[in-house]
């Protein structure tokens, strides 16, 4: 062994292979815990993986850009996977068409609830104006939400974090909340989770079934569109 531990560490911390491997490793471990626990929602694999990885990076002092050089290979697949959501949507389109009316009303109600309650609760708790405007689009998929925040005077980077946290929250709490209000219908389950927590909610909905996944993907797209159009108008009208 000519190489000492220090050199080895410098190599490992910098190679993209490490970032990629620990991402997969943390997620596989998270999945294992989730299954072993009997699918307890709080032990959501995404949540576990994020907590583990933030812990590992903080302890080892590896910064996020270095980690991301490896993790980007996983991150990159989000694009084609989003395009692929058209397939379950197409396969379930008969059901979508038959629910067109309830779906449209639920879209408007849910979209207004998501933005409205976030701003009301935040305002009631004394959040600053910037934080409130960053909170408003948090149920919308990241790129759209950041665009909205930029337009309305929020902080796009803060919005990006709030979006991710909302997604994880929805994936963790979604099935429990729906059970509490007595909803078992797979279409409503998927639509609610996709609307409130975009792609991460959609991913969770797909794990429940294809109908849930199709309606969640649709809700994610529609809520993104509606919020992008409505929210700036409403905020301007309210004079916020």
């Amino acid at each position, binding site marked *: 062994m000519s190489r000492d531990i220090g050199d080895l560490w410098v190599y490992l911390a910098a190679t993209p292979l490490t970032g990629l491997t620990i991402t997969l490793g943390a997620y596989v471990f998270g999945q294992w815990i989730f299954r072993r626990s009997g699918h307890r929602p709080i032990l959501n694999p995404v949540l576990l993986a994020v907590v583990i990885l933030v812990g590992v*990076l903080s302890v080892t002092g590896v910064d996020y850009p270095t980690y991301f050089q490896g993790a980007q290979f996983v991150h990159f697949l989000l694009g084609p996977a989003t395009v692929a959501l058209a397939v379950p949507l197409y396969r379930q389109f008969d059901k979508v068409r038959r629910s067109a009316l*309830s779906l449209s009303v639920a879209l408007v109600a849910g979209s207004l609830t998501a933005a409205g309650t976030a701003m009301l*609760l935040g305002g009631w708790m004394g959040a600053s104006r910037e934080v409130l405007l960053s909170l408003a689009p948090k149920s919308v998929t990241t790129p759209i939400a950041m665009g909205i925040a930029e337009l309305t005077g929020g902080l796009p980077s803060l919005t990006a974090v709030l979006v991710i946290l909302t997604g994880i*929250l929805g994936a963790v709490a979604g099935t429990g909340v729906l059970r509490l209000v007595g909803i078992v219908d797979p279409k409503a389950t998927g639509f609610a989770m996709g609307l409130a927590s975009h792609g991460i909610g959609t991913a969770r909905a797909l794990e*429940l079934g294809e109908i849930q996944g199709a309606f969640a993907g649709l809700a994610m797209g529609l809520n993104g569109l509606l919020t992008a159009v409505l929210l700036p108008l409403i905020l301007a009208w309210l004079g916020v």
Partner: protein
Amino acid sequence: MSLPFLTLLLSLQLVGEILHLAFGLSVPGPVIGMALLFAGLMIRGGAPPALEKTAFGLLENLSLLFVPAGVGVMLYLPLLAAEWRSVLIALVGSTIAAIAVTGWVMVKLNRPDSNEQPPELPEQSP
């Protein structure tokens, strides 16, 4: 995973990104790509089995794909620290409210149709 169909998915995303940039659309490229693929499937009247296999291959582990972005939260912890209480209450409260309201409205307005199957048990996607 079929290479031609993976290429198709990437091409549609690329077309989506180009449309997004060229017309300054608020909708992100991949979502435009999803709409394009959906339109294509409607016109064609069916999804080839190899496309379904490729699509579900990617979607099977969709949750994993959000992990790198999720870890990015660590960059903004100081930003959140100042107002974490109000942010926490707002996020938890509004996420629960949005899920409950959306699901409730949809179920209430759903036309009960006779050929609908009873609610199914949770299942894995294919």
